[in-house]
C-alpha cells in the first residue's frame, strides 16, 4: 500500500508507514535533523525537523509523524522557519556546539543568532568527565538528543547503563546516582559514542589528540576491514592519522552492525600499533 501526499506543492507517493521525513527525502527536500538517526527509534525531542501540516494546530515532527493520504505539508513556511531558527538559537545559546558540524551548518542555513539572548544566558556547561581509558564525556556539548540512551538501551546494546536524569533545564545524561563509568553497568561498546552528534561523547584517543591540538580530520584516511576478534564479521572503518589508528567506526548501513560494535572492535586496536622495538 502506498500513501500519496503533497509537500511544498509537490505530489509524492511513499510506502504506508513512512514518515513525512521519508517523503521529504524522496523529494530531495533537505530537512534538518539532530535527534533523528536511521538506526534508532525516533524520539522527536529536538524539534528542528518540524513541518507545517494543514489542519494541524501545531507544527509536527517530520521524523516521526507518519505520512497520511492527502496530507498537505509545508517545509519552508514562515512558521516552520521561525521554529527551526528558534530551536537552533536555544540550543546554540545553551550548549557548546563547536564540534557539532550538522548543528553549525543548520545555524548558518537558518540565520540563527544564538548570541541574541545575551551574555548571561544560562548554559549547560559542566566539567569534562574523564574517568576511564576508552572514552570521554563532555556534557557541556550535550543537546540531550537521547541517542546515546537509546543506543545503550533498547535500540542496540540492551545494557541500560545511562538514562536521562533530573528534569527541565537540569535534565542530563547520567549513570545511576551519577557514579563514574567504571562503577556503572557500562560495557564500553562505544555505541553511544558512535551516535553522538555533537562531540559530547568522544574516544579517548581523539580527545587526547584534540587536547594536544594534533587531531587532523582532513588528513585522516579511512580504511575498511573486518574485525579480527570473532566470527560475527563486523565491518570496521579504521580512521588512520599519521599511520596510527585514531578511531574505529562501523558503517550505519552495514546489515550486521548497523553502526554498532563491541568493546573489542571499537577500542581493541592498540595491539596493531605495537611495533617491534617500540
Amino acid at each position, binding site marked *: 500500500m502506498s500513501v500519496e501526499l503533497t509537500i511544498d506543492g509537490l505530489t509524492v507517493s511513499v510506502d504506508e508507514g513512512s514518515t513525512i521525513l521519508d517523503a521529504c527525502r524522496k523529494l530531495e527536500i533537505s530537512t534538518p535533523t539532530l535527534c533523528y538517526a536511521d538506526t534508532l527509534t525516533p524520539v522527536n525531542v529536538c524539534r528542528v525537523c518540524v513541518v507545517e501540516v494543514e489542519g494541524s494546530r*501545531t507544527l509536527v515532527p517530520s521524523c516521526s509523524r*507518519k505520512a497520511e493520504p492527502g496530507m498537505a505539508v509545508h517545509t519552508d513556511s514562515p512558521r516552520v522557519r521561525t521554529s527551526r531558527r528558534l530551536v537552533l538559537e536555544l540550543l546554540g*545559546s545553551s550548549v557548546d556546539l563547536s564540534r557539532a558540524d550538522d548543528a553549525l551548518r543548520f545555524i548558518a542555513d537558518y540565520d540563527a543568532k544564538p548570541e541574541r539572548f545575551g551574555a548571561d544566558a544560562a548554559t549547560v556547561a559542566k566539567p569534562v568527565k574523564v574517568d576511564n581509558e576508552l572514552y570521554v564525556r563532555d556534557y557541556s556539548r550535550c543537546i540531550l538528543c537521547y541517542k546515546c540512551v537509546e543506543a545503550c538501551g533498547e535500540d542496540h546494546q540492551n545494557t541500560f547503563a545511562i538514562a536521562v536524569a533530573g*528534569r*527541565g*533545564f537540569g535534565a542530563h545524561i547520567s549513570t*545511576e546516582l551519577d557514579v563514574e563509568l567504571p562503577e*556503572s553497568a557500562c560495557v564500553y561498546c562505544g555505541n553511544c559514542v558512535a551516535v553522538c552528534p555533537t562531540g559530547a561523547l568522544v574516544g579517548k584517543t581523539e580527545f587526547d589528540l584534540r587536547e594536544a591540538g594534533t587531531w587532523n580530520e582532513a588528513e585522516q584516511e579511512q580504511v575498511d576491514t573486518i574485525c579480527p576478534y570473532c566470527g560475527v564479521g563486523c565491518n570496521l572503518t579504521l580512521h588512520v592519522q599519521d599511520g596510527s589508528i585514531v578511531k574505529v567506526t562501523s558503517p550505519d548501513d552495514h546489515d550486521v552492525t548497523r553502526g554498532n560494535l563491541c568493546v573489542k572492535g571499537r577500542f581493541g586496536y592498540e595491539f596493531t600499533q605495537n611495533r617491534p622495538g617500540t
Partner: protein
Amino acid sequence: MDLRLPPAEPSDAEREAIDAIAGPAPENGFRVAHGNRHSRHLLLPALRAAQRRVGFVSEGALGYACARLDVPPADAYGVASFYALLALEERPADVLHVCTDLACRLQGANVPEGAHPSPCLGLCERAPAALRTIAGEEPREIQLPQNGPPLPQAGADGLRLLRRIAAGIDPESLDAYRAQGGYAALARAVELGADGVIQAVKDSELLGRGGAAFPTGRKWEAVAGQPAQPHYLVCNADESEPGTFKDRVLMENDPFALVEAMTIAAFATGCAHGYVYVRAEYPLAHARLENAFAQARAAGLLGDDVAGTGHAFDLELRIGAGAYVCGEETALFQSIEGYRGEPRNKPPFPVEVGLFGKPTVVNNVETLFNVPEILVDGGAAGTRLFCVSGHVGRPGVYELELGTPLRTLLELAESRPPKAVLLGGAAGSFLRPDQLDLELSFEAARAAGVSLGSGVVLVYDENADLVDPVLRIAEFFRDESCGQCVPCRVGTVRQEEALHRLASGRTNGDELEVLADLEQVMRDASICGLGQTAASAVASAIENLKVWA
C-alpha cells in the same frame, strides 16, 4: 538483561516497605527468577513507600527496588530524580513544604528556615498553605491549614455537581451516598446499555473539564469501538494547575460519586480496570478514595460482578510524586508505567494507544462527576466549577451555569475591585477590569481568545503587583518543564531570563521581541500542552495588561 546493582544494601525497614509493594521476595533469588519482569509499573509506588518509611530514597532502597522490579538502576535513578517530592539525599523525616505559588503569595506566603518551597498545593481557598510530610513506621501527610472555609454556595439551589457536598454528606459512608440518590445512575446505565450510555453522554455535549474541552462522548465512543484489548480507564486527578482545587474538593468530600461515575464509564467503554492518578499533595483525597474503593468492593459495587450485572471492574489508586507535567495525559501514562513523566508525541492518541499501549479513556474528575447527573436527570451538562481565590472575600469552589458572566461570579465571591483576573491558571490568561462581562462558556472564551482551562479565577486587586505573578508563572514553567524537548526545556529558561531583565530594568532592548519569538516556538513546536501554553499567561500580561508597555 543482567542488572548491575549498586553496592549499598537496603535497611530492613526499606526492604519491608518495598516488599509491601513488590510482594514477598522469592526464595530462589529474585535475580535468577526474573519473576517480576512485568512489574516496572510498581517502581514509583516502591520508591514512594521507601521514602515514606525513612524520609528519602537511599542508594540501598533504589537498588533494592531495581532488583525486585527488574529495572536498570540508571533508569530508576532517572525516574527518581524526575519527581520533585522524591529526595535522593538524606533529610529529616518531618518536612514542611510551603506553597509559594500564585494564590498563597497574595496571602503572604513565607518559607521558614528548613522548609521547602512548593508549587501550588491546591489549597488556594485557605491560603497561605503548606503540606507536612512525616516519614516513619506510620507515615502521614497533613495539609495545612487542615480545614478550609465552608463551601461558599452551601444551601444554594440549583447545584448539581456540588449538591451532596453542599448538603454536608458524610464522605466516608456508602450508605450516606446511597441515601442521597447514589448508584441510581449505575442502575440507569445498565438499563440503557453501553451504547445507550455513550449516546446519552454525546447528547449532553459534555466537554472535558481538565482544560482541553474535548467532547467526552466522542472519546468514549472511540475507545468502546477499539478491537485491541484490554481497554483502560484513567481518571486524571493530578490537578496541579496553579489556582485549581475543584477536583480535590470533589474527591475529599464526595468520593463515592467518582467511583460510581468511573464504574459507568468502564461499563460503557469496556474497561475492567481503572486507575485514579492523584497528585501526591492530596493525602486526604487518597484516604477518602481508598475508603470508598474498599466500601464499594465490600458491597459488590466493584469487583468481578459489579452490582450483579456480570461486568467486572475494579479501581486502583496511583499517587504522583510532584510533577505538574504528569497532568498531561500521556505523561500520566508514563508515570503509571514506571517511567519519567515525559509526554508522548500525539498521534497516536490515547483512545488508540494509551496506558500500557492499549486503548484508554482518560477523563478529569469534574468531567466524570457530570456523568451520573446526565444519566439520572438527562439533558445537557450545563454547569461548571470555578476555583476562586486571591483578593476575594469568599474564596472557594463555585458551581455556575455555563454562560454566567465573570462579573456575577466575582460578586458572589465578594471580590475586591480587580486590577486583573487570571483566568484558567498559569496556562491561562490575564483579563483586564473592562473584560469582566465575559461569559463563562467554552464558546465565549474561545471567541475572546482566552480559555476557561481548569476553571481558575484568581483576582488581583487594585494594589496588587502584577509583575510578581508574571515572574512566578515563568519560574513555575521553568521548574515544571520535563526537559524532553528543546522549545520548552530551554525556552522556559530564556523566557524567565528576559522577564527578569524587564523587571529589573536592565534590559537589552529586545526583550519583547525575544518573548514573542519564544511564545511562538513553544506554542508551535513543543511536544505537549505544557510547553505549548508556557507563554500564554506571560504573553497576555504583556499584550493585554501592558505590564511592560
